[in-house]
């Protein structure tokens, strides 16, 4: 186990190094942040000063060397726009994203698990067919469309839920923020449902395919002939086997959600990290873009790690290494 963790750790360092190099190169082609930061009537001296201030006057390889050197000191660089540590900016925005991803994952599991199991164990029934048809719609609708439809239905027409933002605490002199209030839950619902829709569809399809395949296996037939109850077969035997493949894909798709909720967050004016990425790309805020992608890589490595561990829980025959 410890050897496994250590190996994963070194893999992660390697991944981060390669990712940082690639993003550094790519983002240097996305344009000159200086003109994004200065007013249009900026003088040539102001432009030159700003370049020196940001370190952009040096050749690219020197910039990268400085970047690496600073990382070794634990400094991931400052955002050009906010003059604050890029990593801090991203971490400051992470709870908002985690919140919406967590709620959407709960919604996904609550809806997709029963429906997927039903569709997988009764593949020929009308219910199963309509579930599969519904999931096809869910998988093909783009999130910006779903988001706007939900806003117009639930916020503008019905007036049940707020259109956007994370929460509306009363303005107080102390300015204290409270988390997980009912009010906040109302704000998180629409973006979570938007994110969940595609996830639900995908998870249903994965579960159904996995279950359907497992149900054909010999050990299920054996259990059936032994007279094991249908419920026990599905939940006790088939589901476990079907889950191993499902969990890998689902785990990675949660990673996808954390990393790239950009569109949903922008539509719902959600102050998460996906929106930060989009604003940063817009103004070529290179340090934020690079650190963002590095953070995302870490998230994926960690998710993969947990997926591997989950394997051993679901299927004890699988050993790490």
């Amino acid at each position, binding site marked *: 186990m410890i050897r496994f963790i250590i190996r994963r750790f070194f893999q992660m360092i390697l991944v981060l190094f390669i990712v940082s190099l690639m993003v550094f190169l790519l983002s240097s082609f996305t344009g*000159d942040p200086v003109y994004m930061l200065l*007013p249009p009537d900026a003088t040539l001296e102001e432009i030159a000063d700003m370049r020196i201030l940001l370190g952009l006057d040096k050749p690219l390889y020197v910039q990268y060397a400085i970047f690496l050197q600073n990382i070794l000191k634990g400094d991931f660089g400052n955002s050009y726009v906010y003059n604050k540590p890029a990593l801090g900016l991203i971490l400051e*925005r992470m709870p908002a994203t985690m919140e919406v991803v967590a709620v959407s994952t709960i919604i996904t599991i609550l809806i997709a698990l029963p429906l997927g199991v039903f569709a997988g164990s009764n593949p020929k029934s009308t219910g199963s067919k309509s579930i599969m048809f519904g999931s096809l719609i869910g998988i093909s609708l783009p999130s910006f469309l779903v988001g*706007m439809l939900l806003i117009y239905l639930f916020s503008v027409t019905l007036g*049940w839920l707020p259109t*956007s933002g994370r929460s509306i*605490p009363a*303005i107080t002199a102390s300015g204290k923020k409270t988390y997980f209030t009912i009010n906040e839950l109302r704000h998180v619902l629409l973006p979570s449902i938007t994110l969940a829709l595609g996830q639900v569809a995908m998870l249903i399809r994965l579960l159904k395919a996995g279950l359907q395949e497992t149900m054909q296996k010999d050990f299920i037939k054996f259990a059936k002939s032994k007279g094991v109850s249908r419920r026990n077969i599905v939940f006790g035997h088939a589901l476990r086997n079907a889950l191993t493949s499902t969990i890998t894909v689902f785990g990675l798709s949660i990673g996808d959600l954390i990393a790239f909720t950009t569109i949903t967050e922008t539509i719902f004016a959600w102050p998460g990290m996906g*929106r930060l990425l989009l604003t940063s790309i817009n103004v070529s805020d290179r340090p934020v873009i690079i650190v963002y992608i590095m953070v995302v890589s870490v998230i994926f490595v960690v998710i993969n790690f947990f997926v591997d561990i989950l394997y051993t829980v679901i299927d004890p025959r699988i050993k790490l290494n």
Partner: protein
Amino acid sequence: MKKSLLLILAVLILIPLGVVSAQNGETLVVALGSDSLTFDPLNYDEEVTNEVNLHIFETLVFNDTDLNSVPALAESWEQIEDTVWRFYLRQGVKFSNGNDFNADDVVYTITRAKTWEQSQYKGDTSAIKEAVKVDDYTVDLVTNFAYSILPANLKSLMMMDKESSENADPKDLAENPVGTGKYILVDYVREDHIDLVANPNYWGEKPEIQSVRFRPITNPATRTAALLSGEVDLAVDISSRDVEKVNSSNVATILQAPALRIIYLNIDGWSDQNKGVEPQDAFKDVRVRQAIYHAIDEETIIKNVMNGNAYIATGPIPTGYNGSASGVERYPYDPEKAMALLKEAGMENKITVTLDSPNDRYVNDGQIAEAVAGYLEKVGITVNLNLQPKSLFFDYVAVDKYNTSLSLGGWYDGTGEGAIILKSMFYSFGKKAGYGTGNRGHFSNEKFDELIDEALVTVDAEARAKLVEEAAVILNNEVGFIPLHYQQDIYGVNNRVTFEPMRNKHIYAWRFSFK
């Protein structure tokens, strides 16, 4: 398992139904198009950041609705010598931390604006040599040369408290603003909300609106939805396709006003190192420039590309600005005349030009460029369209790079002074530091430069206007650039409030009142 599942589902569904929708109460909520970048007023000279900070901070000189200079922290000012402006400060003003506002704060702020490495007010204060304290409530601003429009340059330079700022970490200044303004910051979550409450110790007339929330909502459709659901009292930049929808609702009404931003073409007929046009000196002939002007049907562009949401432009200075009454008119749309002029100049079907344009900076910028290219093709000019994202475009067309001979751009100026616009946009590039920094066409005219030089030292506003107008006529006769249109500001205003917009699109909470 089934039971608990049902229970959770039921809770999820009932929560939204059970809670009455949040009441805004007497809090004014404004939906902005982007977030404010900092609360350090010298770090950015950017419009959204400025409009938020101007609630918390104040300037020496401020704008009225039409951008005329009016007293704020300075009660009056006068030019006591050619190179000395004297400002008489308001007495009895306190910062939100209780400190007195006085001459030391002015000297500190101006020095910081000029010297702090991250200051974006180096340009606005470049004419100032130094700020000198005369007594506690009198400051002299010594300029490098006689400079008549200095007060107009100070209208977004916000005064900071010397005592608490001098030794503070800039990172603290960016988050904990201490100003003299009508409002105080109470809560801020980046890209979610900025909460302000009225300053109880404000020196002047106290605003009706006691608490304000700014919400950056970048997606235009969401802004409209937030307006229609009654969540916000004002939404900026309503997309033109939503105008009808908002007006037909009984929640909100649309308010439209001409914007200050002009969209125009720079055409390089003056430099010798220009690239992007064959033959290289094609635009040197004024007849060719006139032909291009004649070839463009701007009215149709406004109708079809801008959906009618723009105002035709005749020159670079917005109506109402000092120096805007030059009376110049557009070269009318006349493709035949354009072809005749090209023929006269010996350039019939001979010109190949690259039209550079951003495609994500101004409203419909890429489509406007496409339309212009189409019109030029019609009169026999071959056009290569080079559309780039703004992050690449502005570097590519930078005035010192000479990469472009024909480019589409936009300009915004909130000073109210035509002289400042002409100085930045069309003064010969390279002659004086800080002049002609936006002159991508490298327009250069001796007489024009002289007029601007003179205008910048003329204190009398009317005399200055005359000089600027004369310069604008030269610019038009020489076709120094081709104006297209002014954009339109479109606000959505909740029916529960009244709101008076500013010419510069700044939204100030004290210009609202509840009905």
